């Protein structure tokens, strides 16, 4: 017991618990070594780690290959109800916010008419725009977010709605493409 007291509070002077002291020393040693390793030793910087991780992603992308959207292959999918259903789901989830639930055009253009701002309205054109986007017009690239099958499905779904004349159409934008 220490010989002082404050407003009735007395103090013992027990030794510091060993486990506590060891913890304290341990964290100090760890801190020192950690700093040495990462700031002046061989430890990688955050950006070096990022580069390594990005290389893995690039490799995965390369393995996936660049899908070339062929008109014929996409044509074949038009008959598949399953693909159209999947396409509808993707469209409602990702595209409807700007193009409208009925593809009538809201922020982006009407996708059911014969007028096209980018490309000729062919299946392969649409698939490319879905992938790459038209960034300056606000159409985001979906390449990193949609799988190849989803891109195909949503493309086919869009084309299947051609000529559906939805209510509240945004009206024609771009050039009229006569034959398709």
């Amino acid at each position: 017991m220490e010989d002082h007291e404050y407003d009735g509070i007395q103090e013992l002077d027990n030794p510091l618990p060993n486990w506590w002291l060891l913890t304290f020393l341990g964290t100090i040693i760890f801190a020192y070594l950690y700093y040495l390793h990462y700031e002046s030793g061989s430890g990688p910087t955050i950006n070096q780690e990022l580069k390594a991780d990005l290389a893995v992603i690039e490799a995965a992308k390369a393995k996936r290959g660049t899908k070339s959207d062929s008109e014929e292959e996409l044509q074949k999918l038009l008959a598949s109800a399953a693909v159209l259903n999947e396409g509808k789901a993707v469209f409602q989830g990702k595209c409807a916010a700007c193009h409208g639930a009925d593809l009538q055009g809201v922020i982006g253009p009407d996708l059911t008419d014969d007028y096209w701002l980018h490309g000729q309205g062919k299946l392969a054109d649409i698939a490319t725009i879905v992938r790459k986007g038209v960034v300056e017009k606000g159409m985001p690239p979906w390449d990193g977010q949609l799988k190849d099958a989803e891109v195909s499905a949503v493309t086919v779904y869009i084309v299947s709605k051609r000529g559906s004349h939805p209510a509240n159409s945004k009206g024609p934008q771009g050039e009229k493409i006569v034959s398709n």
Partner: protein
Amino acid sequence: MNETISRLEEVTYDDAIVRKFLLACMVFAGVAFAAGLLAALQLAFFPLNMELPWLTFGRLRPLHTNAAIFAFAGNAIFAGIYHSTQRLLKTRMYSDRLSAIHFWGWQLIIVAAAISLPLGFSQGKEYAELEWPIDIAITLIWVIFAVNFFGTLAIRREKHMYVALWFYIATIVTVAVLHIVNSIEIPWSYMNSYPVWAGVQDALVQWWYGHNAVAFFLTTPFLGLMYYYLPKAANRPVYSYRLSIIHFWGLVFIYIWAGPHHLLYTSLPEWAQTLGMIFSIMLWAPSWGGMINGLLTLRGAWHLLRTDPIIKFMVAALTFYGMATFEGPLLSIKSVSAIGHYTDWIVGHVHAGALGWNGFLSFAMIYYLVPKLWKTKLYSDRLANVHFWLGFLGIVLYYVSMVAAGITQGLMWKAIGPEGQLVYPDFVETVVRIVPLYWARALGGAFFLGGFMVMCYNVYRTIAASTEVSNETVRVRNTRYSSAGEGHRALEGMVTVFSVLSLIAILVGSVIEIYPTLSLHSYIAKTANIDPYSPLEIAGRDIYIREGCYVCHSQQIRPMVSEVLRYGSPSTMEESIYDHPFQWGSKRTGPDLARVGKKYPDLWHFRHMVDPRSVVEKSIMPSYSWLVKDKTDFLSLRKKVSVLRNLGVPYSPEQVAQADRLAEEQAKSVAQAIHDQGGPEGLERREIVALIAYLQALGQKEKQPRPTDQVTVKE
């Protein structure tokens, strides 16, 4: 020890001031908890934002945090300090007048905050939102508090300072330094200002402040209170005097360095991040020193845990303190931060500390003090127990749901499939997943508030039964001139030396960590390849800050694959160099916005601000429909741009002179674009146009624009 024998002297303590602070503490606790509960419910159910500007989450959250920290915890601290200091020093406070100015000044500051924050007056810096006139008032009142406190030390009748007083000294000294440095700002109106710090500078200063607000407003003063009220309540001697010494100095010296753990993986220089991390880890043991000294003081008195609600609250408070101070270092480890940062895990962590440690310790103190101050018995121990269990259940529910939400969302953000694509590319998917946990959290908050209301009733009945209220008079022996002792003991008798040493202890880390970054900034400015915001974008940015967008959106893309895939290239130090204040954010309830510019058409933003659900079906963001009605303040732009120019943002004199005209021109073209894309006409003078201009500028200010499909990573 050869103590000078002296006569007994009579002292009458000023308990009236303690009663005032105590009641103010309870009133504002109610406000803080209710605001917190409403904010929690808004996250679970967005219609509760009610499309009222002053009640929307972005403005309510700063009100909640400021009320909890400065009004509730602040008044609790002052009540405890005024009560215990007089007794530990065997003297009345130095000046009753200063005590009164301190009390009324502080309450006035709180009222000013409660009015100005909902009105949208905000500096956009967390826990430092209050604008410059209030900042000055805080400084003045704090100085008055300090004069009163150190004056009391000067007239003490006790030679040595007990450990509680060491913690009070560290609190008073450090909070002054933190508040002043972080609040250096240049006004551009009677209620608005821009901080002198920008970008990475501002980030570092702000989190040095922000973290040490936790350290020196929510930790050291409460440790001081614990050191007084726990041995008093348990009537046991403190476990270890030397542990007090070691953990006090360890805590004070190390805590100040830990701020950069809020900025791991940001564009803060990496060495500073690493320092922040390692000092946070070294902080573990000094923090636990306080916990074990408290818990081991109860040796031989553990039976009180069954019978005495005060001890129950204290033990739980210390346990939550121990838990939070273990979790803190854990979250500071870079790889853990990579998952936890920006998520609700941090919110859970903070509330384990705020509700568990600060809340429960304050409640214990209130249950201890009320019967003493009103000279009666507590109305009902049983109700105090009910309060304990409601509160405890509330905290556990809160904590568990938030940690689960945080880890779930953190892992969803990071998930990458075998094809190298994000598994959850839609941000809102990760939000929808945790909404049930938001309900659970709100329920936890409701329990906590319910428990508090039980306490209010209990305290009310106790006070109502009181027949006599007076200041306590005691007879004390003056030991001011007893022997000084040796070593640390001698230091405890030297107030000035002790205070200066505390100041030095906190300045070492502050200077080493902050100074290089401040000077670094002038170096970047010369090479920066960045255009400043246009005047209209500045107007938009001020709306962004006013609405508290930074409360839910970060502007800092971390150098991690999942972030690069989701948001683009990592943020650079240069990009925010002209941001007074920085807007990196600390929580992502919505997605990061650092590179949102040009990602969507203007019309998308228009529709999104008016009704977020019209473009993102499951969004929980509030609607900001008033931005379509309210008019942009073009007139103040010359003043704003001129202040920014004086702070070093490279505007030409013409840009300053023509700021409002330039802004009106740009507003016309944005409004035209919205109309062309199919939106309504005639928006050019509306706030929404300024905000959209700002959002479209984010990540677009590099003079040589980076290709959007290319990721750039610096060596």
